[in-house]
């Protein structure tokens, strides 16, 4: 079982993750088309002149910030940003992971110290607990939650919970590390085909599609 999870299943998981994500991106391109006609035009020019008052009230940066999601939900915005950034970045800098790269292929990517990784892991788990509490106790989140949402949260946080347990030798190490590898593989496989697909689609929706809330240059594609 250990050899299966450590060997072929890792390849299967990475293959499904990469091929699945590429499939989703290619599918998006096939279902959308380039249309410069609908390109979002952002207002340009300097501040309005006094003798030429703007038709609409001009908001200061502070006012705009207060009206944004960061202003209306500052705690959630902070937690979700930190959680998602660390969820993606931490696994690349875990010493234990990078030792495996070294043993297998002789490459040594940079690693954080184990103590620092431990702190990052705890932050991710704390973020997961925060999301769980929101889902359980906030009426507005509970109103749109189903079992599926809890399963997705479990899939996303399980690799970190088992990693935390394995590092501290809580419970039987062999079993926990096996579960850790399995949890990571399940998460990779789940990303392209479950709600976790919001990982690639966040970038597609916010940078490629033309709509009012597109970041950057205003997007370049619309749905067919």
């Amino acid at each position: 079982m250990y050899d299966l999870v450590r060997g072929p299943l890792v390849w299967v998981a990475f293959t499904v993750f990469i091929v699945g994500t590429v499939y989703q991106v290619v599918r998006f391109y096939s279902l959308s088309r380039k249309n410069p006609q609908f390109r979002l035009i952002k207002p340009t020019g300097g501040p309005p002149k006094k003798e030429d008052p703007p038709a609409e009230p001009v908001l200061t940066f502070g006012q705009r910030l207060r009206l944004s999601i960061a202003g209306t939900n500052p705690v959630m915005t902070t937690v979700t940003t930190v959680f998602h950034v660390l969820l993606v970045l931490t696994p690349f800098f875990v010493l234990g992971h990078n030792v495996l790269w070294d043993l297998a292929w002789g490459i040594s990517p940079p690693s954080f110290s184990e103590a620092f990784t431990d702190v990052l892991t705890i932050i991710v788990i704390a973020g997961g607990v925060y999301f769980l509490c929101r889902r359980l106790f906030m009426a507005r989140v509970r109103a749109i939650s189903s079992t599926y949402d809890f399963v997705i949260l479990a899939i996303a946080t399980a690799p970190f919970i088992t990693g935390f347990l394995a590092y501290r030798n809580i419970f039987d190490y062999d079993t926990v590390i096996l579960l850790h590898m399995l949890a990571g593989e399940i998460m990779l496989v789940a990303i392209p085909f479950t709600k976790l697909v919001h990982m690639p689609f966040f970038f597609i929706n916010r940078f490629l599609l033309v709509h009012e809330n597109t970041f950057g240059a205003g997007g370049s594609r619309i749905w067919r």
Partner: protein
Amino acid sequence: MSSPKNDNTVNTEAIREVLDTHRAKMKTALRVCAHCSLCAESCFLFHVHDGDPRYMPSHKFINSIGRLYKKKGRIDQEALEEISEIVWRRCVLCTRCYCPLGIDIPEMIALARNICRSQDVYFTWDQLEQEA
């Protein structure tokens, strides 16, 4: 919700046709929605109704187009009336709602309205006068 249609026949095929033409976009929107509720404050009706979750943009789109999609259009008249209640009475399509994941919620609501209209289920001002 008022509707000129009183019989209990819903043309599932007609609904499915509309759903099929927008399947990819709808499926993506429903799958990408992380059920985070961060869109809530962007809806003025959510504020007006003292934070009633039923007025959250995500709640409205999940329970209208999401419901139609999950049921593959196999829906009865009563359910269609409930959906029309959501897409006309709980949403004015002001298009001010904001999704951090970039889902075009107004478009989904508009699509649900189209489906309701295709079955002769829609909001009428007479109904509002009667309620008043």
